[in-house]
Structures are given as C-alpha cells and as structure tokens.
C-alpha cells in the first residue's frame, strides 16, 4: 500500500531471510511487505533483535555465509532485483540504485585512507566516473552534507564523530542512488550533533530527492525525518501508517506501549515500560508474536493475525479485524 499510487520506488513482497546458526534457524525477516515511494522517508521502528537491520541487509543482499532461506521479491522501479544474479546486482543495484549508511558507520571509515578518497571510491568502483570526476562528485557531496571541502584531504581520526557520520552519509550518496538505508545514524551522537545530522538529512531529501529508510529504536528522533512509520516486531511488520497518524495515535498494542515508554520533554507524562521481552527468532511462536506481552490479547490471537487497513493505518492485529 502506498498513497503514492503509481509512484512507487520500491515494493518489498514477502521478504524472508533466515540464518542458520548452531542453535537452529533464526527467522530474522519473516515475511515482510513494505512499499516506499519516491522522495519518501519511512522509518522502521523496532527494538534490538526485531530483525530491522537484517531487513536492510536482505534488501541490499549483504548476506553472511550462513543463510538458510532468502526469498521474496524486491521490486525497484518495477524490476524484481531479487531475480538478478549476484554479479548484476552488485554492478547495477547495490550502491548504484540503493545504498546504506550502516550502524556506527563513523567507526567504519578506513583509517589509512583520506576521507575524500573513500567517498569517491564507490564512483570509481562502479565505473561511473574516473578519478577526477569521482573526486569532484565527492566534493559536491561534502557540500551537501555540510562538511567543509578542505576536509577531503583529512584522515578519519582528524574528524569529530558528527563529521565522520556525515562523511559516511556522503559516501552513501555519492552515486546518487534513489534510496538510502540509514541504520541507527545518530545513536552514538550527542543531541546537538544529532539535530544537525537530521537537518542535513531533511535538506538532502529536498535537494536530491532521495528516499530514505531510517532504521532505529529511538522513537523520538525518528519523528525528525519520517513521512511514514513501520513498526517491526519479531521479524514481522506489525503496523505501517503515516507519521501524522502514527505519532498522534498508534493503533497496534505494541506501538502504543512503545510510544508510552518514551520519556517526553515537553509534556508532563510519566513513561511506562513493557514487561517481558521479545520472543526468540529461533522458532518463533505461532499466532501473534506479541500476544504474551499484550494486555488486549484474546483467544483469536493464537492465530497469526492478518493485516487490516484502518483509518489510514495498516495493522497486523485481530483487534482491528
């Protein structure tokens, strides 16, 4: 579903990614459907272990060696990129049409290369430019993300955390992809730096017309960028809706309890917490996966809920059936 109608950049259908581990099969992404329009930002909200990082890896095909199941469809501009073989995917899709700023990206910069060269590298690696043009493009990206251009010649350790994160963002944007995944882009950063980065992201969204998928557990900061919100729990997407609807009144019990647990600065509201913990993705329970922590559970919850469309939200919950 998307209100962009025919303006859908990416559609994910029944995406599954399971890992084989010594203790069994971890069903990290367990049948996810998601749409993303052009120049749209969607937030995937969820706590640790819900599978949201695996979702990004699944779409970008950044798979480890112990994959058990990898199936589903990812339609990018109408083409199913899941059907491409690895070589074509690497050449034509990854970092050309979609890219990622991984978690703690600021620590993932190569310490022995100048940052300008690192940002330029995706251009040369994908034969989109020669060295000169690549550096020029890197320079342009630095300007977009707000890093002074003379920092092109510096090394990673000479930059502050916020600067490094912006460099990582520039690296993800340098090939002008349509879609950028952001995995916890500001979790290690201070409040002011975080606000800065989001300012940059908002600006880039306007100037470059990029779409973003923001993966985070921080509900408050997610509202800084979100056009739509998707809540992930135990490998499933349990709610998707517009930001204006979601932050005012989430529908799924889990979303509700998550919102209630956020301490608020401007409003006097004592936050609560959710008892228990998410189910293990190793053989998750049948039926609704949130049922045992849900205050509104009833008998039907023993069956896996279908997805219902209610007031502009898509909710995976029998309460709305």
């Amino acid at each position, binding site marked *: 579903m998307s209100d962009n109608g025919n303006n859908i950049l990416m559609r994910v259908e029944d995406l599954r990614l399971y890992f084989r581990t010594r203790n069994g099969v971890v069903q990290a992404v367990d049948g996810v459907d998601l749409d993303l329009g052009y120049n749209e930002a969607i937030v995937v909200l969820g706590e640790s272990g819900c599978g949201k990082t695996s979702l990004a890896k699944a779409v970008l095909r950044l798979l480890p060696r112990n994959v058990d199941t990898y199936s589903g469809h990812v339609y990018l501009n109408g083409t199913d990129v899941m059907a491409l073989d690895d070589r074509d995917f690497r050449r034509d899709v990854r970092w050309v049409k979609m890219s990622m700023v991984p978690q703690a990206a600021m620590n993932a910069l190569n310490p022995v290369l100048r940052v300008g060269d690192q940002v330029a590298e995706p251009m040369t690696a994908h034969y989109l430019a020669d060295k000169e043009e690549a550096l020029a493009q890197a320079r342009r990206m630095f300007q977009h993300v707000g890093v002074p251009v003379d920092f092109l010649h510096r090394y990673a350790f000479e930059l*502050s955390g916020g600067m490094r994160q912006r460099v990582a963002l520039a690296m993800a944007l340098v090939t002008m992809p349509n879609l950028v995944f952001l995995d916890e882009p500001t979790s290690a950063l201070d409040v002011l730096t975080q606000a800065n980065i989001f300012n940059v992201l908002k600006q880039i969204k306007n100037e470059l017309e990029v779409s973003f998928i923001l993966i985070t557990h921080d509900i408050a900061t997610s509202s800084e960028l979100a056009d739509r919100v998707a809540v992930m729990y135990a490998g499933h997407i349990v709610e998707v809706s517009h930001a204006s609807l979601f932050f005012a009144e989430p529908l799924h019990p889990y979303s509700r309890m998550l919102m209630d647990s956020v301490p608020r600065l401007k409003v006097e509201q004592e936050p609560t917490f959710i008892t228990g913990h998410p189910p293990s993705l190793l053989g998750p329970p049948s039926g609704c996966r949130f049922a045992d922590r849900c205050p509104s559970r009833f008998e039907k919850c023993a069956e896996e809920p279908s997805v219902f469309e209610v007031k502009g939200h898509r909710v995976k919950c029998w309460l709305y059936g």
Partner: protein
Amino acid sequence: MSVDIRNREEEVENETLLDKGGYEKLSGALLSVRDLRVWFELKRFGFLHAGYVRAVDGVNFDLHRGEAIGIVGESGCGKTTLMKTILGLYRPTEGEVSFAGSEVDTFGSQALQSYRSSVGYVQQDPYGALPPFMNVQSILEEPMRIHGIKDELERDRRIRDVMSEVKMTPADDFLNKYPHMLSGGQQQRVVIARAMILEPRLIVADEPVSMLDASVRVEILRLLQKLQDSHDLAVIYITHDLSTVRYFSEYIFVMYAGKLIERARVHELLANPLHPYTHALLEATPDPDYQNALTQKEIPPGEPPSLVNPPSGCRFHPRCSRMIQGLCEVEIPPDFEPEPEHFAACWLHR
C-alpha cells in the same frame, strides 16, 4: 544549593565519619565539590610538556543525602572526568572533593577503601561492566571479598537481599549464570546490584540506560529511583539525554567545556532555561511529533571547544547567538542567581 560546610568545625576522624553512625549525624552536604579542576597533562614524545586538557575547570556544587541530581552535557564536556574524580579514580589538580566533610584527596588507604564502599558506580555498558568470565555470584561477591567481609553467611544474605531489590528473583536462577546469558536489562540489574552490595551512600550512574532498549529503560530508571527512596541514597545521573533526566532527578546541572553553566530544579530548568546552551539543548531534543520532520532545527553552529585551548571568557561565546561583544569573550561569567535556586553562568543575567 548554597554552600555550607559548617560541619568542618566538627573535625571528626575520617574513618568514623564514614560509618553508619556518622551518616545519621550528618547535617551538611554528603558530597561537596569546591572549585574542582582536573587537568591532564599532554606530553609530546613521552616527556615534553605540550599543554593541559582541562577536562574539569572550576566546578562547585553540594549534594545532600537522598538528593538526586542529573548532570547533562555532550561528549567532551568533562562530565565523565568529573564523575571519575568523585569516584576516586582521578585526583583533583586543584580544588577539592569532600565526602561527609572530609577531603577525599587526603584519605589514607583505609579511609579510601571505606570511601570506595560508600560510593556505588553504575556504568553505561552493562555487558562491558561485568567480567565475562565470572558468574553473577562471583561478580557480587568480589566487592565484599575486597572489603574483607569474610563471613559466608553474611555474604550470602547480602547477595540475596540485593538480588531481590533489583527484582532478580528467584536468585538461584541467576546466580550461576554468566553475563552473556543475560539480557541487557538483566545485566544492568546485576551492575546495580553490585553497586548496592556494599550499602553505599552515594550512587554515580553514568548513562545507565542509554545502551538499553527503549522499553527497558524506564524499568531500570524506576528501579534506581526506588532504591534511592528506600535507602535514602544520593544519586548523580550523568547523561546527555534531557528527556530521561526530568523523571529521575530533582536537580539538573548542565555542563559545557569543563564548567557547570546552569543549575536548577528540573521543572524550573525545563520551563525556563536561562543559558543559551541549555536552550539549544532543549530545542534539539525531540519529542515524538510528526511536525519535526517538516522543520529544520535551530542549532548553535560549530562544535564543542577543545579542552586544551578553550576559548577565552565564556566558553560558549563563539557559538552563542546572544553574545555580548566586549564582555562574553573577555571575562568568564560567574554564577548568577536570577531566580531562587536557579544558577546560570551567563552575562545575560548579570
């Protein structure tokens, strides 16, 4: 929180003041920090002097029994160094930290051990704070072993008491588990249990929940609050997240570039921030509201200053939109008190 160290006249021996009797008698501040400066020397080539990192550069405050204060600031502001100095891990370069009236720096080794048992430390990273090769039982026994609590029954009793206080019951289910077998929340409870096991008077908590999931944070913070109430503990929360601080402390101190630039009661500070930096912090901290995505936030330009060569005068002046020319960059502002019990180190309030 005016300074009153009149109890200095009751010069009591270091050791006795720190025992239970001493606490009951305590009238003044439990912890008193005066003009504290903690500077680290920079050396080039291992021996050439190359300046000082002025991590803490003139901090004053008092903390009383049962009080909770939150120290808020961004990374590099010196709050971690301040905390570690209070814990006794660093020594003051100038100024003093006094506990129950006696300067910590002057403590002999016995008094220092006693002090260590009076201050509990809760760290940010719950997994890193626990030795991965010790099980919960050993972890909780270590502080007791070090402080010479030899009686096994006594140790066992304390362990069980503290485990039930952090709601990890039945204790036997957890005692022989290793840290990696516990969830983040459980690990943090063990850290708190360990901090409580020597029956401290003061707890220093460094970002105690920032590495935990959102749904667990409130639980842990509530736990700390409950412990504070039931044991009449003084608590210092160190954090960079203003939105949690308001629920769990009475006072907020804002730290910038090694100095405390604003101090007030929570509600007062949040309703009426006096220092431009505090104002910026409040603006930048989002509440979940979809309007956020539509607007750019106003943020002071630039970055926190280097602690080696801090700016002259008010440390914040290069970034301040309301800087007063000729004053702010020349002289360091003292603490003004424009409202009762609300201090701001800013020339705007002279």
